[in-house]
Each structure stands twice: as structure tokens, then as C-alpha cells.
């Protein structure tokens, strides 16, 4: 994991998916990969998170699970969500 606030290619792809799914007013490239998605930061609520989870499952075949012990970490930023998706992709 890097400290950079520049999106990687995969992060950019995920940012696009999030913006498109939720019809957000921000540009995908403007999402800080290290800023929180939920609550403050991007200001998403739990319905938005559900919508993201459904889209991620459709696009990447990765299921986000409610009982995952690392959920706080996984949902903490675009970067950590992307890391989780990449780790579980095709698994």
C-alpha cells in the first residue's frame, strides 16, 4: 500500500464505477484514494454502500460480506476497498 494520493489504474476504475453507480456530482478522478468513503469524506450513507457492494459483486464478482472482521478497514477508503477487491478477485 502506498501513501500517494494519486489513484492507481485499478483505483480509477473503481472510482468510475462508484461515481456512475451513485450518480455522484464529483468527478471520479477527484476522489482522494485515502479519504473515507462512508460518513465524512465522500459522505456516503449505508444505502450507498449497499449499492456499491451490489455493483462490485456484479462487475468484479467479489462479494462484500457483512460479517467480515475487517469491514471497518475495507470500507475506510477507495484504496482499501480496491485492495480488498484485488485480493479476492477470481478467488
Amino acid at each position, binding site marked *: 500500500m502506498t501513501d500517494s494520493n494519486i489513484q492507481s489504474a485499478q483505483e480509477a476504475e473503481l472510482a468510475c464505477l462508484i461515481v456512475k453507480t451513485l450518480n455522484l456530482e464529483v468527478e471520479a478522478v477527484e476522489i482522494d484514494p485515502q479519504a473515507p468513503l462512508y460518513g465524512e469524506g465522500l459522505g456516503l450513507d449505508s444505502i450507498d454502500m449497499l449499492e456499491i457492494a451490489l455493483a462490485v459483486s456484479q462487475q468484479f464478482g467479489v462479494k462484500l*460480506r457483512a*460479517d467480515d472482521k475487517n*469491514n471497518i478497514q475495507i470500507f475506510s477508503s477507495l484504496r482499501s476497498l480496491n485492495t480488498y477487491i484485488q485480493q479476492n478477485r477470481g478467488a
Partner: protein
Amino acid sequence: MTDKSLVQEWTIRSERGALPLIKLGVWIALRIGRRAARIFLYPTCLYFLLSSKRAARNSREYLARVLDRPPSPADVFRHYLTFASCVLDRVFLLNEQIDRFDIRVHGDDVVREIMERGGGCILFGAHFGSFEVTRAVGRQQGHVPISLVMYEENARKIRMALAAINPQLEAEVIGLGRPESLITVAERLDRGHFVGLLPDRNVSGEDRVPYPFLGAPARFPRGPFRMAMLLRKPVVMMVGVYRGGRCYEIFFEPLIDPSEAVAADMDASIEQAMRRYVAQLENYCCAAPFNWFNFYDFWA
């Protein structure tokens, strides 16, 4: 009292201090039984009636709309007493003492059909009458579990009360305070569970849409309807009306059929579902006016 519900005031200010009090109240109620415990409702209602002017004013405003005449002090007292009766009865319902009650169910074929398909179902209730009575009937009939989704703050209080009455039911409360809260809802629905919400109340929140309700526009939260559309599960409106004495009447009515809701026009489907929900809620209010338990300014 602030713009919050009476329930919140009722469940006592300091949460840490509340648990022993709730436990004591529950212990007394279960020990002396429903009939004796009901006697205490009268002074309790009188106390709350006199101690919170704002809740009483909101009650009067609602009653004036629904009764279509200026409400008398007796009407307001009856409103409080109906609420207090339902709160007390929850103790006995959660304690599996359902045989104390005379419960009639209408429209249960709607849910039975969904249950047989095994696909899960979303129940939309309201802060109206008793949701608990349905859950109790469900448990008695060996029904699939009915989880309840609520704001985290309320979830904490309810869990605390449950810890004192029936700790096994704590898992059935889903708080909204976490990013994965609704993923929990989705997973439970996929296991065939029923999940209940009360989408009439949204004290805060930006995503609210005004609908005509008892003669004036009132704002209703759009979130629960959006969630239901995303999950593509049947939504049934469920109301447990308290009829006085030991009588309850439960009504089920289909609200959203996911096969009818068109994905391409989600906004229109949400709008239609909200309109139907508000219209049905209004009907229930007119049929059983004192069962309305939103003691804040609903039309604010």
C-alpha cells in the same frame, strides 16, 4: 423536549443509568402481571402529559387533523395511554406471553405465499400501533425470523431493553450506523428472513420527499424505498393496530412487487411506492387514530 420522539424521552436520558431502571420496570411488570401493571400507566401518562408541553401540543395537532375536530384533553390522554399500553405490552410479547392477547390477522396469505417461495421479504411498518405483536405471532408460528432495522441510537436502546427481557432476540436488531449495515440486510433476505423497517420517521436526513398526509404535506424518507428497489425483494406493508383491552389486529398489504418495478425507471417506481405507502398509512390513521406514535411535529 427537543424535536425527538417521546419514545426517546421515555427511555430515560442517561443510557448507562437506564439499564437498571428498565430491568426493574420489566421485573415488576412481569411479576405483577399485565392487568396490575396497566394501573401504573395512568399516572405515568399523566406525568408525561404534564411534563412535556411540546409532545402534548404535537399530539393535539395530529388529533385535530385526523379527527377533524378540536381534540379534547381526554383525547390527548387517550393518545398517550394507547402508546403506553403498546410499550407495556411489548414486555409481555417479548417475554413470549402471547397467549394473553387476542390477535386477529388479516391478509396473512400475502406473506405466506412469499414465505413458501423462500425468498425473503421486506416489511414496511410505521410508528403506529405495535410492530412487536407481528414478530411475536411470527415466533409463535415458527415463522422465519423478523429482523428490525433502525437508527443506531435506537438500536442501542432496544438492545439494552431486550437484554433485560429476551436476550436471544438481540441479534434481530440491525443498527444503521455502519457502512455494512444494509449488506447485513441483504444477506438476511437472501437467507429467506423477513426484515422490518419503519419508514415513516426521518427526523433528520436530507433525502425526504413531501407527500400530502392528513391534509398537509409531510416529508417522508426516500432511503428505505430506494433500498427496497435495490434489493429487489417483495415489500409488504405491515401494521399491528391496538384495539384496546387485550386485542390487536394485524394487517398485511402488498406494497412493492419487484417484478413490476422497472429497473430502468427506478425513480418512478420509488415515487409510486412512496405514494402508496403514505396513502395506506393515512387510511390506517383514520381507521385507528390513537395508534399514531410520532409525538414530534410531523409536518415540520
